[in-house]
């Protein structure tokens, strides 16, 4: 190619680009939808509120450094860093916060290589057991144990315990037993929030009759390589509400097989919604579209009035577009998964993180202690944007920004209600993070039968 023709072709490309740019609209910052300064916290942390003398028991730790290694990255990490501020002022410890989404792969590497962090926030009890098995997890100080006994329910303490020894105090929490709906649409149509599962089905039938151009339910279980997890949450929710916590625990521990008739009954109950072509999939397609819809997008048809209910965890609030009013009489809100079995009553499937310490230095113990206090939970709540809360009984719901978080905390603090950790996080990874996801996806995408689905998952259980 001669230099001249190259030059002219470049000029042509440049002119073409210029024309495209001239024709194209330029979006303003609001239109762009990118929140600028996304890392700014909801409120400034009030630093003077805490009593510094509570840290005297750990001796002189001034000048120490403590590394905290977590799965929580920017922008959610900023409020953690903010909430360490008053603690750092009191003790002189500097906390080095280190978040990575590759945490679960990297933590075992670091621990095995002798480069363990001082503190790690473990998102699953199973990972805690794995870390305890390496022999490097240190038991917490007595003050931490006392805090946990006082501020957390027995259910939560059990999930931080491995083989009868308590290792890791709980930290944050999330609640998965929620059904999202639109209060304004419900009010307009004259619908009531259902109290029981049967009411909810009756309401669904009512919606089918009243609104032929929309569907009562929308769902989506797509999540990249983890496609299927929202369906496992659905099943867990039904099992806990229908069969009760004892059967749930046996199911998790494999004391009853995965294809036990009780589990089959619950799967059929879940299928009564997810695989009912009259009920799904509002604004998204037919039953099969559940498998191909990304979970982040699955609830959005509620805003267009094409769908009425969407079962998803409390953290789904982050997926509503900016400007959506999430409140009890706003655009969207959630009600707790309704009661199926009167004997079980209200129950919560949820998740959370646990604070494991990898050494017993006084500074490390002081950080672990601080994270187990009610002061910390309240300061963190003030610093957080919507989407963070804790099961700490000292946490005052009024410190939370978002009504849905307040509702979740009220549920967690309700002594009547049972808490159980997400079962698929507790089962062996071959089941909870592989077979169950795949089989439930097939259950929806290729209309695999209930029995076949449960048999296949049971077959994947490691012997």
């Amino acid at each position, binding site marked *: 190619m001669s230099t001249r023709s190259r030059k002219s072709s470049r000029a042509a490309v440049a002119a073409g680009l210029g024309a*495209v740019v001239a*024709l*194209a*609209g*330029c*979006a*303003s*910052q609001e*239109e*762009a*939808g*990118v*929140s*600028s*300064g*996304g*890392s700014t916290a909801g409120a400034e942390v009030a630093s003077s509120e805490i009593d510094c003398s509570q840290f005297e028991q750990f001796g002189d730790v001034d000048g120490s450094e403590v*590394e905290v290694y977590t*799965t*929580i*990255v*920017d*922008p*959610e*990490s900023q409020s953690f860093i903010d909430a360490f501020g008053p603690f750092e002022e009191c003790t002189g410890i500097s906390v*080095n916060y*280190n*978040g*990575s*989404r*590759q945490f679960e*792969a*990297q933590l075992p*590497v*670091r621990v*095995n*290589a*002798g*480069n363990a962090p001082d503190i790690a926030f473990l998102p699953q009890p199973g990972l805690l057991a794995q870390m305890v098995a390496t022999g490097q997890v240190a038991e917490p100080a007595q003050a931490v144990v006392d805090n946990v006994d006082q501020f957390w329910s027995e259910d939560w303490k059990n999930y931080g315990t491995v083989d009868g020894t308590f290792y890791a105090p709980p930290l944050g929490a999330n609640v998965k037993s929620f059904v999202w709906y639109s209060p304004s649409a419900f009010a307009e149509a004259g619908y009531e929030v259902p109290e029981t599962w049967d009411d909810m089905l009756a309401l669904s039938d009512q919606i089918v009759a009243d609104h032929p151009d929309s569907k009562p339910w929308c769902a989506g279980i797509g999540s990249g390589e983890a496609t299927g997890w929202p369906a496992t949450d659905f099943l867990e929710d039904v099992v806990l509400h229908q069969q009760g916590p004892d059967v749930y625990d046996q199911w998790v521990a494999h004391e009853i097989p995965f294809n036990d008739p009780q589990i089959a009954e619950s799967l059929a109950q879940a299928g009564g919604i997810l695989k009912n072509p009259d009920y799904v999939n509002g604004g998204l397609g037919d039953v099969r579209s559940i498998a191909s819809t990304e979970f*982040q*997008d699955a609830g959005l048809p509620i805003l267009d009035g094409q769908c009425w209910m969407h079962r998803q965890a409390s*953290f789904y609030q*982050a*997926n509503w*577009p900016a400007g959506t009013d999430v409140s009890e009489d706003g655009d969207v809100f959630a009600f707790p998964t309704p009661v199926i079995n009167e004997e079980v009553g209200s129950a919560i499937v949820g998740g959370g993180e646990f604070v494991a310490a990898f050494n017993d230095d006084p500074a490390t113990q002081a950080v672990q202690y601080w994270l187990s206090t009610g002061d910390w939970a309240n300061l963190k709540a003030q610093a957080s944007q919507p989407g963070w809360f804790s099961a700490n009984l000292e946490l005052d719901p009024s410190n939370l920004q978002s009504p849905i978080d307040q509702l979740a905390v009220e549920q967690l603090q309700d002594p009547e209600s049972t808490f159980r950790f997400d079962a698929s996080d507790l089962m062996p990874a071959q089941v909870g993070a592989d077979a169950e996801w795949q089989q439930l996806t097939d259950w929806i995408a290729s209309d695999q039968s209930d029995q076949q689905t449960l048999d296949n998952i049971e077959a994947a259980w490691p012997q």
Partner: protein
Amino acid sequence: MTASDVSQEVVTQATGKVDAPVTESWRSRRRQRRAEAAADRLSKPAASTIAIVIAVLWSIPTLGLFVTSFRTVDDIQSSGWWTAITNPLFSQYNYQAALVDSGLASNFVNSFVITLPAVLIPITLALLAAYAFAWIPFRGRNTLFVAVFALQIVPIQVTLVPLLSLYVDVGVAGSFWTVWLSHSMFALPLAIFLLHNFMKDVPPSLVEAARMDGAGHVTIFFKVLFPLLVPAIAAFGVFQFLWVWNDLLVALTFASNDATPLTAAVADLAGTRGNAWYLLSAGAFITMVVPLVVFVSLQRFFVRGLLAGSVKG
């Protein structure tokens, strides 16, 4: 320079001997004929069309990524990038959010701080080693050379945990040194092999003549071999630069929180629960820019250098 020219050059380099003028002219005639034939074949319309189609198909995903990175969040989440042709609405806020708010700018600097020494250290060491393997006879030279080359077959994954425990024992864990050293270690076998082959290609008479004139190893290395090796060094430099810049595994394992390069930062860009995944296309482009510039500007050396390494044993 066309592809056929490059391969011709490779053939000449590979023969590795200074030929007599007669054969040289015969060779050059034959070479020219072959080059013309190849040029004919390549410039046929059908061949050109196929090449263009392949090039276009190959670039479409990148183009889509590029268009997506300038679209608004709503558009990214609701429609494909090709709809931007009929409904163009663009903004630079994805880049602003990724670079400023998510702090990719400092990771960009980290990437350079990691990459430059991780390219210079192995090249320096490999040049010395390759010189010794090529021009200094010593006992066990061939065995040692095979041993060094055989290290290439060790997958780096199996070395991660032992290497990290070594670093912890020595007390350098968490500094930039761990990343530099690891990349250097993983690069050295290939670097020594490639540069050794280049050095072997230099006619022995040149080195012998220099030695007759009283040059020592240092003079031979700097005055005779080094100028001839520039293309090889550039080729390996490009290769190593791309490898280190794009590396995620070594960075995740060895780089401390303050030393995180772009790749690791982009992996965290989407946020804890993936809500901000619309930033990924902008992040990906920020990561791609430097390798793209390096590759395009040094492409000549890259192709030539790698081919030369591969045809010689």
